[in-house]
């Protein structure tokens, strides 16, 4: 089996495989292999606070199917999740809950701010007493997605952007 075909979005496996009798020799950098593994099995946390969550569920469903890129194992516990997609409005009462969920996730962990509310407060930026004006006031965000709500394609693009970011960074 050719290892280079394993990567789903046609990024070659970072390294060279030299077949030998009874196995093979792999020449690569450890950092790159770790990043390759991490970026291809990101488990999202089941977390949605409003209508963006509907689009997120649609992205998980058969038509858009984010499992093609390694996101299929949505976890209902932060202890087993790698990425939290903030799908919806964060209100002041939800902020400490979000912070706690983020703190409970094991490193390495990633955050996607999905949609206008999670990015900046969106339609609730003005004249609202209850909404946090951007989830980055509470936890650090890796990728922002525009839209209200963003289409599944946009979320997929954000997820793939996150994968790209992981591959480029130090492990």
């Amino acid at each position: 089996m050719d290892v280079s075909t394993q990567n789903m979005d046609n990024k070659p496996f970072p390294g060279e495989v030299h077949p030998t009798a009874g196995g093979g020799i792999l020449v690569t950098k450890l950092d790159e292999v770790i990043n390759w593994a991490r970026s291809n099995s990101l488990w999202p946390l089941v977390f949605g606070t409003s209508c963006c969550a509907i689009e997120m569920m649609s992205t998980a469903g058969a038509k858009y199917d984010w499992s093609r890129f390694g996101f299929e194992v949505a976890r209902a516990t932060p202890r087993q999740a790698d990425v939290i997609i903030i799908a919806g409005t964060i209100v002041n009462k939800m902020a400490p809950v979000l912070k706690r969920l983020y703190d409970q996730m094991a490193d390495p962990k990633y955050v996607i701010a999905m949609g206008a509310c999670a990015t900046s407060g969106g339609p609730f930026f003005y004249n609202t007493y209850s909404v946090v004006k951007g989830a980055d006031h509470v936890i650090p965000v890796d990728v922002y997605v525009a839209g209200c709500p963003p289409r599944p394609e946009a979320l997929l693009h954000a997820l793939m952007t996150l994968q790209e970011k992981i591959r480029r960074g130090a492990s």
Partner: protein
Amino acid sequence: MNKEELKVRIEELFPSSVFEEGTEWTTVVIDPAGWEGFARGLRGAEGLELDYLFCVTAIDWKTHFTMVYHLTSTVCRHTVVVKVKLDHDRPVIRTVSDIWRTAEFHEREAFDLFGVVFTDHPDLRRLFMTDEWKGWPLRKDYEDPVNMIKL
């Protein structure tokens, strides 16, 4: 009963009732003083049997408040709306949580966001806002320089 029949029946029971015209449902406007007796009448009277309170709303008109009660009958399948005008400085009305149990939470919400006080309510405290919250966020004159960016 249809809209006209409801109107006739309510007028029969409460001759001083004032009706609003041009509405989807039969709409009665009453004073807060007569609200308890009126509510009991709507729930118990034969032919009305409005046993389900499905929505309680408060409206801030700046000069006064209006409480809006949407009632329906699970037996007769008709709907009646009751509007009660309240004073803006002292919005007080009797609770109907003993008549329709669901009002207990609905009235807590109206108290929480508009500061309407429901007398004899069994548990009138904040519902969505934190216990130490000051002010009534859905009032038109509400100001919150910390959390709100005015436009």
